[in-house]
């Protein structure tokens, strides 16, 4: 038998353990063994996961992500972690929150966890959003899973007294996740949905143009829809509005060395590859080519 009670070597920092003796103090990223506090369905596709967190994990910034070791949904193991961006940070309670869509084996495995289960996460990872002091009003545009990613930056903006307009896109009203999260920080909420056609590119463009006219768009933030990203990018270019986009790509290491997670960007007319895990996941909206 192995020496420790695991088969695959690992030496995570255990949240709540008295000393972090084995964990070098200077590291900023941690493999952490958290405990699940809650893991509840928010609709028929999405779950909301709350876990205990260590001080290093709590230092996560909006737009950063954790690389989550999901348990198996069946009898077979999983062999890659799954990246999940941070959805909420509760420093006081020492908790992290994630909002995830159940799509494949990994996320379905994650969905099997319950309070008290141990969840191994690596993070905080990547470069998050930046909020420049000169911005008074920002526009966030999210769809689907992207709504989760938009929540913490909106919250930070709210805390700093920056005005937030949140354009929330979804198939129908029941998938308009975390509306309350945006409401709680006093964001102006513009729901756009497929069922009534409000999420159409033309309509979203009209909304954005109105916000620009109103001086409500000092910066753009987006995640979750290629179609809507393209609108933001175009308008950002037209009006010189800075923008940031959170990207996704299949990942192996999540830390930089493997070069699995590259995406193409365009910088000064040149195509370049960048790693979503360390050079992102947040990128300049003008350099991105597609979500």
């Amino acid at each position, binding site marked *: 038998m*192995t*020496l*420790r009670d*695991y*088969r*695959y*070597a*690992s*030496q*995570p920092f255990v949240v709540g353990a008295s000393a972090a003796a*084995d964990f*070098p103090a200077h*590291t*900023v*990223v*941690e*493999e952490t063994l958290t405990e699940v506090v809650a893991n509840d369905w928010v609709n028929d596709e999405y779950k909301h996961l709350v876990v205990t967190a260590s001080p290093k994990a709590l230092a996560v910034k909006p737009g950063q992500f954790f690389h989550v*070791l999901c348990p198996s949904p069946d009898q*077979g*193991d*999983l*062999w*890659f*972690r799954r990246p999940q961006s941070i959805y909420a940070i509760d420093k006081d309670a020492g908790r992290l929150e994630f909002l995830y869509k159940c799509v494949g084996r990994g996320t379905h495995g994650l969905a099997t966890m319950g309070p008290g289960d141990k969840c*191994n996460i*690596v993070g905080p990872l990547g470069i998050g959003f930046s909020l420049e002091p000169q911005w008074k009003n920002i526009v966030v545009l999210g769809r689907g899973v992207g709504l989760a990613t938009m929540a913490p930056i909106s919250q930070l903006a709210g805390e700093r007294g920056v005005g937030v307009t949140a354009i929330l896109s979804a198939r129908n009203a029941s998938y308009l996740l975390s509306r309350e999260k945006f409401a709680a920080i006093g964001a102006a909420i513009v729901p756009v949905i497929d069922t009534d056609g409000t999420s159409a590119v033309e309509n979203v463009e009209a909304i954005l143009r109105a916000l620009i006219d109103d001086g409500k768009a000092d910066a753009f933030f987006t995640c979750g829809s290629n179609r809507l990203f393209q609108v933001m990018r175009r308008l950002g270019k037209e009006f010189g509005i800075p923008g940031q986009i959170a990207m996704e*790509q*299949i990942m*192996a*290491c*999540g*830390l*930089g*060395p*493997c*070069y*699995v*997670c*590259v*995406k193409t960007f365009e910088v000064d007319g040149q195509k370049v*590859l960048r790693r979503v895990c*360390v050079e992102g996941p947040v990128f300049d909206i003008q350099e991105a080519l597609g979500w």
Partner: protein
Amino acid sequence: MVDLSVKIGALTLANPVMPASGSFSTEYAQVIDINRLGALVAKTVSRNFRAGNPTPRAAEVEAGMINSIGLPTKGLQYFLDVQLPDYKQYTPPLVASISAEDADDFQAMARDISAPGVDAIEINISCPTRKPGGGNFALQANHTRDIVARVRSVTDKPVWAKLSPNAGEIVDVALAAEEAGADALTVANTILAMKIDVASFRPALGNKVGGFSGPAIKPIIMRMVYQISKAVSIPVIGCGGISNAEDVIEYMLAGASAVEIGYINFRNPTAMISIIDDLRDWCDKRGIKRIADLTRAVRDDDMETDIYAAAAQGL
């Protein structure tokens, strides 16, 4: 307390645990104390910039992963100017890894990368997905011999030849590398493999096929390390599917002097540190004084070969 140090030719490592090329960079210092590693093995570099292969570049499979990264690199000059000084902030010996288009280029690369601070050169003659311009020279003994000999002639650094498990006659390739002057053999690179997504009917990798690594391949590479260690007298470095300390012990028993670890770093970034700690505990518990004594210590000489006698005893 066990002495974990091992020797690979003239080079002494504080312990037998190294990262495998391509699975490691100094970016790991974000999460572990990389000064604890036996050595640092850099990602393979080639002379000029290479973008790599089309995405998707990796897919999960049972007990591991397949990848077709395609050896992206910023090129030799960038390595010497930026990466080498970066690596030298850390204490473990540095193993540079090189790839090239042909034997000439390998020779020139080996010469040019023999800078102070590079403690050994691993020649990656075995990348299964590199294109264009061939790449998997280690499929054949004659190509291997040629490249190793030419590399040998231009550098005083220890030369480690990284072999390919896709070779049909890997022992012959190993012997050719030894003969041509390799100081050590890294056994091995990834195994060419494939996955097709049954939902989309498409290959899971942009490159269609890719290299297989992770726990699944361990028994295959273990057999190769065992066969090669019986045939050569230079040190062998085991590489393939290591996921815990017992896997390292198993490779050493089979003949390895040290190991390189790839995939499991992706699953658990703290794995190498945990493995080093566990190796110490494992040896201490059994009163093993020097871990180096485990190399080639497999007890296979007195095995029962009579079928009826074997099946009469125990299991």
